[in-house]
């Protein structure tokens, strides 16, 4: 604005100049509107994705859908094994990824000396975060399913997903550990606490909401993953519930994929209903994460 005024003043306010400036202003407004449109269009598409799934799946959504087993008849087919499978996968993945992720983050932030080794680990973690998820599937297939002979089991799936989300868990946990002010660590050490006590009683409790937020978001991502589970060979038709960690399984995205792949439109309605359940599940997880983050912000304002 100021620039324009100066320019007009300097040129004595020639009419041509003025017109050009006004035109420029008009162009600016047009451009601004285009930019805003580019920002709103994806949000509109997001709404379309959700509304489309709800519209297609609404007729199938119901108690029967959630409590039935898959079937050759689309209108009788249910989501139960997929729901249970995803729930079990989630718990097992968390059980593997949380200790590993927090442990690695605590090591990198609190113990490790800055050096070649930590630089290597850091670079490695950021590289791993960019590896396509299907490659983790190949790793899981060879390492867990074949070499360790776990078969196409829940535990093989969970171990694969845990490796997949580990970089995210580590990065989020480190971020959270870094928000704990050093003065608190020093205070704890000055009171005679050793390093481990300081971490366990001061640093971890302080950073826990942040760490939990990161973990929940990572687990939410794992719940939505399809490709690695397909690759390790999760079953697409499961008419039983998993009874142990060595049991064969299916999961929500796998069941949805199976229904989409069928030519009959009736099964597409099932897929849409499954999508609504999956999205609701992720919405709840993300809601919890946001709630935790807000809580964290409140607690750190002192």
């Amino acid at each position, binding site marked *: 604005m100021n620039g324009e005024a100066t320019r007009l003043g300097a040129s004595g306010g020639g009419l041509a100049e003025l017109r050009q400036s006004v035109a420029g202003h008009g162009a600016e407004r047009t451009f601004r509107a285009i930019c805003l449109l580019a*920002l709103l269009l994806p949000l509109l598409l997001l709404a379309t994705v959700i509304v489309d799934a709800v519209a297609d799946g609404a007729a199938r959504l119901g108690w029967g859908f959630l409590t039935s087993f898959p079937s050759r008849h689309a209108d009788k087919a249910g989501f139960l094994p997929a729901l249970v499978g995803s729930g079990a996968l989630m718990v097992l993945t968390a059980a593997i990824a949380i200790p590993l992720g927090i442990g690695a983050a605590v090591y990198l932030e609190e113990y490790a000396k800055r050096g070649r080794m930590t630089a290597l680990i850091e670079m490695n973690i950021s590289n791993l975060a960019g590896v396509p998820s299907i*490659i983790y599937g190949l*790793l899981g297939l060879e390492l867990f399913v074949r070499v360790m002979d776990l078969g196409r089991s829940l535990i093989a799936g969970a171990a694969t997903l845990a490796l997949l989300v580990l970089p995210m868990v580590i990065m989020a946990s480190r971020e959270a550990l870094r928000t704990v002010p050093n003065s608190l660590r020093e205070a704890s050490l000055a009171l005679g606490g050793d390093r481990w006590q300081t971490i366990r009683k001061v640093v971890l409790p302080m950073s826990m909401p942040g760490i939990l937020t990161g973990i929940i978001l990572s687990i939410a991502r794992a719940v939505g993953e399809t490709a690695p589970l397909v690759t390790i060979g999760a079953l697409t038709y499961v008419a039983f519930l998993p009874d142990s960690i060595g049991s064969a399984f299916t999961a929500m995205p796998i069941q949805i994929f199976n229904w989409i792949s069928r030519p009959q439109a009736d099964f597409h309605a099932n897929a*849409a209903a499954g*999508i609504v359940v999956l999205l609701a599940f992720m919405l709840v997880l993300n809601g919890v994460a946001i709630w935790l983050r807000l809580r964290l912000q409140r607690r750190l304002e002192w």
Partner: protein
Amino acid sequence: MLALFAAVSLLTTVGIIAVLIFETAGFFREVSFREFFGSTEWTPLFAKPTFGIWALVSGTALTSFIAILTALPLGLLAAIYLSEFAKDRVRKTLKPLMEVLAGIPTVVYGYFALTFVTPLLQKLIPGLAGFNALGAGIVMGIMILPIIASLSEDAIFAVPRSLREGALALGGTKLSTVFRVVLPSAFSGIGAAVILGVSRAIGETMIVAIAAGQQPRFTLDPRVPIETMTAYIVQVSLGDTPSGTLAYRTIFAVGMTLFVFTLVLNMVAHRLRKRILGGAAR
């Protein structure tokens, strides 16, 4: 003890590379390099199989190109709006909302591409097949849009204020400032965003497995069914392929190709980003 936990991430990388190399080596004992890199036919399940990776690479390249074509203009304009025009509060609300797009499970996007976008496109483009690269590519573009917008916005935001003020003081309009000063200054950061977006698109699996078809074809025609590298891995995994067979090893050879592509792209992007982060403080 804790160091062991940190070492798991290193072991993961070692594991990925070891597994890919081991099975790919087995693959190349039976199939020549010349065939793999020299042929454009990918017919591994035929009685007389041919293993020409270019049929799958072209599918991947085509869908990724369409995705970038969709995501780059939209993402860049959105980034410009967020950093140059939006008020702080608007920016803080819309940016996370946009990132929700990146969190939607890809199987959901696949459904959207197959049952919503493709039928819509078929009304506009007669002769568009039910499975095609176009619909899948466009939806993939929606998926990577938040990455491109978010990283471009970081790069644009990192352009020092003094440069903008300099341009305005020299009599530039807001538009010329954005196009002649801000965007060129943010170029390497935007480049990094695009490369990371491409890398994500190349590795994306479910959208193309669901909506782009499973017909390996060396073509740049976006209207016909194709098959990407990732979709091939899914296709084989869905069947019950015993380990040790050539068919089993093909998915690792394809996975290796995919891994190398994404690794190179990620490293280039990392370099570019390091350059801007070193240059401008944020």
